[in-house]
């Protein structure tokens, strides 16, 4: 219920105010919100309503910042649409600003049927000078399009598909059907990116010829020509060429202003217009050089060339100079052609080569390039400068061409001064030595003899080594044996015991015959005792009969043998210390007994061992 009431109320309010607002309005407007200091401008206050006659008491805002030139000027209009009358009443003022800055025009008031209406305030910006737009000039001149149809620059290439390093000639031609009024000036030069460029000579003054192009007759002049040598492969672009051309253009009649025409141009109505002409950009497709069968000496020359070599001397002395000229002539990228490598033989000192190029820049780039090598031979002999090779790629034949010169043989004779400048390489010690002279010869020559091989290969040497060695070995061997025997005295004594005993007995027998019994007994006892000592290994100092009989017993001696021995010894002792009268018979008996005993002992005890 309440909602419904509210709705109705709202709708009635909207309707009521809507009808009112449509019925009357009062607005302010200005023809230019931004004005120059010296400009005039108009401010309008407009009242729209059903009955404009009811408008009373206009109160204008304060125009204190402006100068009021005219106003208020009143104007009204009425219209009847479908029987409904509506009208508008406008109050206008023409104002001029007094000073620079931003200003506000305040509210204007008006009374209508007892109600006060007001406008909203206006903002005015005052600037220096005049904000008025310039008057259009184009109204009486020819259009740019029209000029472009009649004046243009064409960039023309002779080939659009070339090999790397092959010449492309680009020509810039000016086509015109208009009169050129004055000196043209270049506004933009083309850029030859990826090319080595060489300007082709063109006459300083452009000679115009007549040429038909697209059905129209043009005057054509060559502006510029350039030879381009691509230095990289792929699609390369030459940027446009810009030229500022002042053209003379006939003025269009702007009216029957006879005086204008008369005073401006008595010879025809025309004006000068600076037209900026631009050429098309050019695309060139650069192919790489074939990679097969590339000669060893090829280093980038493309075109058509010939090779020529010249040498000024064939025979000279050391330290004289020699010049070798290598000339390459022909057409192509001559400037990029490096002089061919020359392998000079050793013994030549070579200096930096001088290169001289003469290039003819007319059409295709051609000319000659001469490289001069200065050589100074330092050592004598027959020298050979090997054949010089030069290779290039011929784009028309699509193949590589190798040229080669003849080798030169040169006779170098020894000059006067041998390596005089080599002194610098001597070290300090060397210089000291160079000042000295060699020592004098040896005057004694006793050492001079037939040369022979080394001593060690001679038999005499080995004999001299071998003889002392053998002698030494033999001597040492003999000594060894001696030492071995000498080392065992007992053995020696044992072996000699019988011999000594025999000789002693022999001596004793002689003594017996000589009747020298004292000596005889001492000899006999020595023979017996010595024999026993030696045989039984008993030292002399320890010898006694008991000891001897013990030793014999140990060696399985028989009892009667010991008894015999005892008898013999006792007899000997007895006779030695108690000599009696019956000496000769006793001596004989003792001699026989002793001999018997020794023989017995030898037989029974030692014979086995001895055997």
């Amino acid at each position, binding site marked *: 219920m309440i909602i419904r009431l509210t709705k109705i109320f709202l709708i009635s309010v909207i309707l009521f105010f809507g009808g009112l607002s449509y019925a009357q309005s009062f607005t302010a407007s200005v023809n230019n919100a931004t004005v120059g200091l010296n400009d005039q401008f108009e401010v309008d206050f407009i009242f729209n309503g059903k009955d404009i006659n009811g408008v009373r008491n206009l109160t204008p805002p304060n125009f204190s910042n402006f100068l009021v030139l005219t106003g208020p000027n009143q104007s009204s209009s009425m219209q009847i649409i479908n029987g409904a009358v509506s009208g508008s009443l406008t109050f206008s003022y023409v104002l001029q600003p007094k000073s620079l800055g931003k200003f506000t025009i305040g509210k204007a008031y008006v009374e209508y049927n007892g109600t006060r209406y007001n406008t909203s305030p206006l903002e005015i910006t005052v600037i220096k000078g005049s904000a008025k737009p310039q008057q259009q000039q184009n109204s009486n001149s020819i259009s740019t399009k029209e000029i472009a149809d009649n004046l243009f620059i064409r960039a023309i290439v002779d080939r659009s598909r070339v090999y790397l390093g092959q010449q492309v000639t680009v020509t810039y031609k000016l086509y015109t059907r208009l009169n050129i009024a004055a000196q043209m000036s270049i506004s933009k030069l083309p850029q030859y990116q990826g090319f080595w460029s060489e300007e082709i000579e063109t006459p300083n003054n452009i000679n115009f010829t007549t040429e038909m192009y697209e059905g129209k007759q043009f005057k054509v002049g060559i502006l510029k020509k350039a030879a381009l040598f691509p230095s990289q492969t792929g699609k390369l672009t030459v940027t446009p060429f810009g030229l500022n051309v002042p053209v003379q253009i006939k003025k269009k009649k702007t009216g029957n202003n006879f005086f204008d025409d008369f005073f401006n141009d008595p010879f025809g109505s025309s004006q000068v217009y600076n037209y900026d002409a631009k050429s098309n950009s050019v695309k060139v497709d650069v192919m790489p050089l074939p990679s097969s069968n590339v000669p060893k000496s090829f280093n980038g020359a493309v075109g058509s060339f010939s090779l020529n070599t010249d040498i000024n001397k064939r025979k000279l002395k050391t330290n004289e100079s020699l010049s070798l000229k290598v000339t390459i002539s022909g057409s192509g990228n001559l400037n990029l052609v490096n002089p061919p490598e020359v392998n000079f033989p*050793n013994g030549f000192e070579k200096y930096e080569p001088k290169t001289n190029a003469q290039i003819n820049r007319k059409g295709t780039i051609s000319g000659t390039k001469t490289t001069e090598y200065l050589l100074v031979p330092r050592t004598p002999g027959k020298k050979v400068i090997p054949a010089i090779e030069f290779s290039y790629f011929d784009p028309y034949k699509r193949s590589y061409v190798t040229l080669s010169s003849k080798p030169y043989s040169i006779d170098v004779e020894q000059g006067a001064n041998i390596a005089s400048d080599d002194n610098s390489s001597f070290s300090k010690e060397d210089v000291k030595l160079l000042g000295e002279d060699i020592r004098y010869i*040896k005057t004694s*020559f006793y*050492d001079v003899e*037939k040369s022979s091989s*080394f*001593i060690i290969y001679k038999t005499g040497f080995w004999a001299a080594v071998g003889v002392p060695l053998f002698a030494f070995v033999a001597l040492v061997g003999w*000594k060894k044996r001696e030492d071995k025997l000498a080392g065992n005295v007992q053995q020696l004594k044992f072996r000699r015991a019988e011999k000594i005993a025999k000789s002693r007995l022999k001596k004793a027998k002689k003594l017996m015959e000589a009747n020298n019994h004292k000596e005889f007994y001492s000899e006999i006892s020595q023979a017996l005792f010595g024999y026993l000592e030696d045989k039984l290994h008993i030292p002399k100092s320890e010898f006694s009969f008991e000891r001897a009989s013990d030793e014999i017993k140990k060696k399985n001696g028989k009892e009667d043998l010991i008894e015999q021995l005892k008898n013999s010894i006792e007899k000997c002792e007895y006779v030695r210390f108690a000599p009696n009268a019956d000496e000769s018979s006793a001596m004989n008996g003792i001699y026989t007994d002793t001999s018997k005993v020794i023989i017995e002992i030898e037989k029974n005890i030692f014979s086995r061992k001895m055997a």
Partner: protein
Amino acid sequence: MKSLVKILIISALIANFALASQVDELMKQGNDAYKNGNYKDAVTNYEKLVHQGYEGVSLFYNLGNAYYKDGKLGYAILNYEKALRLSPNDDDIQHNLAIANAKTVDKIDTLPKFFVFQIWESLLSFFSIKGWTYLVYSLFILILIAAGIYFFAKGPGIQRYSFFGGLAILFLFIMSVIILTININRDQNVKQGVIIVQSVSAKLGPDVNNNDAFVIHEGLEVRIEDRVDNWVKIRLNDGKVGWLPDDDIAQI
């Protein structure tokens, strides 16, 4: 029979005497020519002896001197080196060889050797091969004597001395034998040569058509490593290798 032997001996003696007198004569002529400044004549006389197969320190040294004075540096160095082989410590030869070497054009840097090797090299060339042979023989005899004393001496003191003395001599003997062996081996396997032409381009191979490797000049000592037809492969002290016609080089 006896008389035949006698005749033979006498004739041999005469021949020997005649030869000896010829040597004396040629040496004397050479020395006189040198003294008078006729270096070419001196060279001719000395060379005659060399061609007949004679050798000697004085012969090679004098010949080197004569060549030096005659301006033939290569031959001079060649003969000095020959003389030095016979007498490695001869001061005169060393001095003249140093002067001759100073006059050569090529200054080839030899890498400095480790001092141990330097000592070793100077030890090797302390005596000539002949000298080392004599030393080895002397040491051999000394060893025999020491051993003899050891075996025949009576007192233990003398025996001890002779034993240790003999050991020391034995060590020296073995060292000398090693050095002698190395020297003989070197003499037979390592061939040195001297460049005898003023300048020659060493080729990369044993053929005229080969490329030049380097240029060397008179008097340079090189090692001869190989021989193909009449080309020799040489190695310089700095390790460079090249081939030369064998006419341009003389073997020491």
